[in-house]
């Protein structure tokens, strides 16, 4: 009887989900007492900035890539897109250094750290293709400069920074989907593992419990 139920993939999937993410772990209303510093807010601030970046980017996408050159509303939305990106990177870098100084990879959290680094790298790629998608002098200059670096790696054979259509596609579909997926994974890992405890001041050597 039990073997029969275990063969149900759907049930196994649901059980795995439930045990990894019981609702009170996914959205807890308490935290360990050490979670009390402004530095913990920077992960959420990064997420919020990413939200504003996405929302303003969606508006620019609805109206098309050259709209903002001749509409004052468009220009304002573009400004919001730029400034939310600057805030996003600022918050992310503070977050990164915060997690570094807390050594927040301890206790099985290395993958959380690695997905963080990957999200940083992919975000840089997204911002870069954004600069190429501005359809102004800045994008002309950045494209002609960046081609040498990318061509030198052999990557220029497929990733042509001088091809506006290709760069726009990367900027508004492929890379944002990538950043979004990694961030979801990153935050789920944080919820799964819980927030890393402080260093023990005694520094006593113990056996790893488990």
């Amino acid at each position: 009887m039990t073997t029969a139920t275990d063969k149900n993939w759907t049930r196994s999937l649901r059980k795995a989900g439930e045990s990894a993410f019981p609702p009170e772990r996914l959205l807890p209303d308490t935290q360990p007492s050490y979670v009390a510093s402004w530095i913990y807010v920077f992960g959420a601030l990064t997420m919020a900035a990413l939200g504003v970046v996405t929302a303003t980017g969606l508006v620019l996408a609805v109206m098309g890539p050259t709209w903002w050159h001749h509409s004052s509303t468009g220009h304002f939305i573009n400004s919001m897109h730029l400034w939310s990106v600057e805030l996003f990177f600022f918050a992310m870098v503070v977050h990164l250094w915060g997690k570094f100084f807390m050594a927040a990879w301890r206790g099985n959290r290395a993958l959380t750290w690695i997905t963080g680094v990957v999200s940083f790298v992919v975000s840089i790629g997204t911002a870069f293709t954004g600069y190429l998608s501005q359809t102004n002098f800045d994008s002309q200059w950045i494209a002609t400069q960046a081609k040498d670096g990318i061509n030198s790696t052999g990557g220029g054979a497929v990733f042509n920074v001088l091809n506006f259509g290709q760069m726009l596609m990367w900027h508004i579909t492929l890379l944002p989907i990538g950043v979004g997926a990694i961030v979801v994974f990153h935050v789920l890992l944080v919820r799964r593992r819980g927030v890393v405890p402080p260093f023990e001041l005694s520094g006593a050597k113990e056996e790893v419990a488990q």
Partner: protein
Amino acid sequence: MTKSSRRFNIDRDVAPWTGATRPYDIAKEVAICFLVIGLLTVGLSVLFSSPDDPAVTLKQWAVSTPIDFATTAATELDGTGGTAGYGPPYNTAADGPMVLGISPAKIAGVHIPVDAAKDFVLSPVAALPENPVASQAIATYEAASVEQRQTWAANYDAAVTASTVTTAGGKVIVAPGDYGPVATIVDQLVAMAQSGALDTTMLTQQRFFSTDFTKPLLFISDGSFLANKAAIDHLQGDQWGMMNETGSWPGQAWLWLYTMWYQVPGLSTSDNADLQVFLIIIGLTLLLAFLPFIPGLRSIPRWTRVYKVIWKDHYRNM
């Protein structure tokens, strides 16, 4: 070794937390974050707006600096131009940057074929409608031997960069010499660009719809016009340009580490800098990603003791 028998490493492991908890409202925190970021974004946008320098055109280039334009055209013909001598992925004129004798660009090969002489100069001039002077010059050029073309183009290149070169009514005037049809071809191209026709021709050369600006961008970046404009805006590579933005807006500040290497003596003058800097950055990124596993590096947080500030309430209450 199994997990449970592994020695406790303070930079890798933690003992499970059995201490007190306190109420925490994640949803409220996230909502407030959205509000704060939203307000900051609107505030910064109202205060500082964002830059938008219009794109430059081949027309502007040919009108404002016809000699630079003519020189660039000549270098595409004699093979000394930036694109003409680039190598992969555009052509086989060079091997691309190398490290340890390996050129990744060469291995990847030519995938975006660009024949600088033909695509930037000869084809546009040949396409000029009802222009017997232009078609005659192109016919003469194409009938000549490769050596003959090269001699004409090199002669013209030398003349257009000589101090005697002048302009009259937008036309480039070089001292008389053995240029064959090259002077005529370049004159035609200059006039075509000044009329604005070259901008559309270079794009629609390909087909009616085009979103690919590879050719006009390569051509314009082979001249000095684009770079001179960029230098005014402190955007050149040796001006930390990668992280700057037109005007005084913040640009891609997060590229500071990447662009820093281009300022380092040795790298700043290396022919292979692009590849060398890229490899350095890949190495550093891998170090950052795998930091949790690197003894020594992963102990820095403990040694620097910044954590004592972050968790000061926790330690005070212990």
